[in-house]
């Protein structure tokens, strides 16, 4: 009998031991993979040495949280996992094609709450809190400009091209930009005078391309009356007739700016028919693109200080000033 009990005890001990070892290994592995992911989203030391270290730390933290919300729904769309998610609570805004989801609202709340806790005297301009009302003007107060999901139509359809955009402005000018696209695993960070980075790697534009070799991106936005459509089409036709390498429309203005910054697109434009973007689309991308060496202006040139009008209703962003001017020639003559 004792012999039996001893063997049982031994067996129990062995099983418990194996389970502990197994659990420890799993915990360690999970920590390791989590670390791996976070490491590619480390803030480069050059940016931590900028005056905006705390802003970066806050922005990256909430951008990843907001991005995870985007990915949770976006990646589940069209799969069996979608059934266990709450519905997106889609509400239209100015038109049927312009809508926001629960996640837009949630993401903006996450970002706003974090800013108000850490920087209670900063101003915040957010897409969802503005809604269809008048966009508050930028003041001299330190101001955050937030787009909780750029590319909402894509997101709602599970198209993996969407991102969260957070910008910080000082004296009415964006000085820090943070864009996180969770479904393509890209974190873009930039500070005025301190460079632009994608997943920790510095982005620098060096090459001009001729229009013939250019990848031209555009966004048709929401206006749908005949004149507007005809004008937008005429612009694209012009680019094609003059000869360009390819045209693209991916549905996220913020990503468009980041993709110009990394040379994936040669240029992006919008604003032929009033379909220009909003301050929260421009602000972070402006810092990222300019720090990467790109040119970004409204259809009208920047003012004498070279300042881009965040409230302007048109934009051209190109990998070089020369290409920007070529684009301007076309789009201002439609």
């Amino acid at each position, binding site marked *: 009998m004792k012999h039996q009990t001893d063997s049982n005890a031994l067996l129990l001990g062995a099983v418990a031991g194996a389970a502990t070892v197994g659990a420890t290994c799993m915990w360690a592995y999970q920590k390791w993979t989590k670390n791996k992911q976070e490491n590619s989203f480390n803030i480069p030391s050059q940016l931590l040495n900028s005056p905006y270290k705390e802003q970066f730390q806050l922005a990256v933290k909430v951008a990843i949280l907001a991005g995870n919300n985007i990915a949770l729904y976006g990646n589940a769309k069209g799969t069996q996992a979608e059934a266990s998610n709450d519905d997106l609570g889609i509400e239209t805004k100015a038109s049927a094609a312009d809508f926001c989801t629960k996640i837009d609202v949630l993401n903006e709340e996450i970002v706003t709450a974090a800013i108000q806790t850490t920087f209670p005297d900063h101003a915040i301009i957010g897409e969802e809190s503005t809604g269809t009302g008048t966009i508050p003007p930028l003041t001299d107060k330190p101001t955050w400009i937030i787009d909780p999901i750029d590319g909402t139509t894509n997101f709602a359809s599970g*198209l993996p091209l969407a991102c969260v955009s957070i910008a910080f402005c000082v004296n009415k000018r964006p000085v820090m930009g943070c864009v996180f696209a969770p479904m393509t695993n890209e974190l873009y960070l930039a500070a005025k005078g301190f460079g632009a980075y994608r997943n920790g790697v510095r982005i620098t534009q060096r090459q001009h391309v001729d229009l013939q070799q250019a990848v031209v991106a555009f966004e048709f936005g929401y206006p749908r009356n005949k004149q507007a459509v005809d004008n937008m089409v005429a612009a694209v036709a012009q680019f094609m007739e003059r000869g360009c390498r390819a045209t693209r429309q991916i549905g996220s203005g913020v990503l468009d700016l980041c993709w110009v910054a990394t040379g994936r697109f040669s240029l992006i434009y919008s604003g032929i028919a009033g379909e220009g973007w909003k301050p929260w689309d421009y602000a972070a991308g402006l810092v990222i693109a300019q720090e990467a060496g790109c040119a970004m202006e409204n259809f009208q040139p920047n003012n004498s200080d070279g300042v881009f009008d965040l409230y302007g209703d048109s934009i051209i962003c190109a990998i070089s000033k020369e290409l920007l001017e070529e684009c301007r020639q076309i789009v201002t003559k439609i």
Partner: protein
Amino acid sequence: MRQGSFVSTRWSVFAQVLALVFIFPLARAFVATTPRPSKNRARLAMASQLDDALLDQVLDVAIDASKKAGEIIIGNAGPTEVTERKANSRDLLTLIDPLCEKTIKETVLASFPDHDFLGEEDVPPGKEASAAAIASKLESASNSWLWVVDPIDGTTNFVHGMPLNCPSVAASFNGEVVVGVIFDPYRDELFTAVKGRGAQMNGEPISVGKQDCIGDAIVAMGSPPGEESMQMSMKAVQVLMPKVRTLRMIGSAAIMLAWVANGRLTCYWEYDLSSWDIAAGALIIQEAGGKFTDLAGNDFSLQTRKIIGCAPAVHDEILRVLREEAGIV
């Protein structure tokens, strides 16, 4: 021993032993792996009669081949694109594209040495050459099996560092696509279909979008370089824009087809594509419950060049708009 009797000489015995030991097993293997082409075309085997085990094997090989090509793409499209890549991407493509095709072809032929193979890299550029190539392959009676492959669909995207390019691998039997695989190595998404078995992404069933009115449709289209296609595209944009939710131009037919299959896009249409761009995607969309036709509404075949793949409830309406309002035929 009678003179000249074959059976009874020592050499003949030796020959018979040789035959048993070597030739018989080889013959068995040959018969097992090679579907015998029928000499009588009127009695061509239907794809539906294909053995399940054989289809499984074809699918496995297609997946294996596309994953190998995907690894090559990822290995050459990494983070260097923000810094040093740009000067050399076009050169890189001229190496990677054929390398991917060679890898796919070798993988296929290792398992199916007698299958026929049509890859994009084998054919000179241009619509005429492409149309002639598929026509000629379909005509030749050398084998019932024909693989139709694009090693990297979305080469401009590849050159520019956009994570929107991938291999497209299809296997057809007597002119009918029975296995289709599209593998996106950036998001590690494997889209597969076998005729009659539905469509999957990473092994899970997928289906096309449920949109039932054109106003909800996200419509993808190409950005074609050719003059004729360009005119058609612009006309289409003019008539579609006011009616649909939004338009997209992603730059890879395979990606756009795969994304129709799992509902990310409602519809993808294009005026002129080659067989290797569409073969796998056409099957995947159909198996995902979508409607896939040419721009006249006819069923898809390997020689189709003008295509529309769509969630079934809005296919006819979008096609009507393209044909009647944009004059695209």
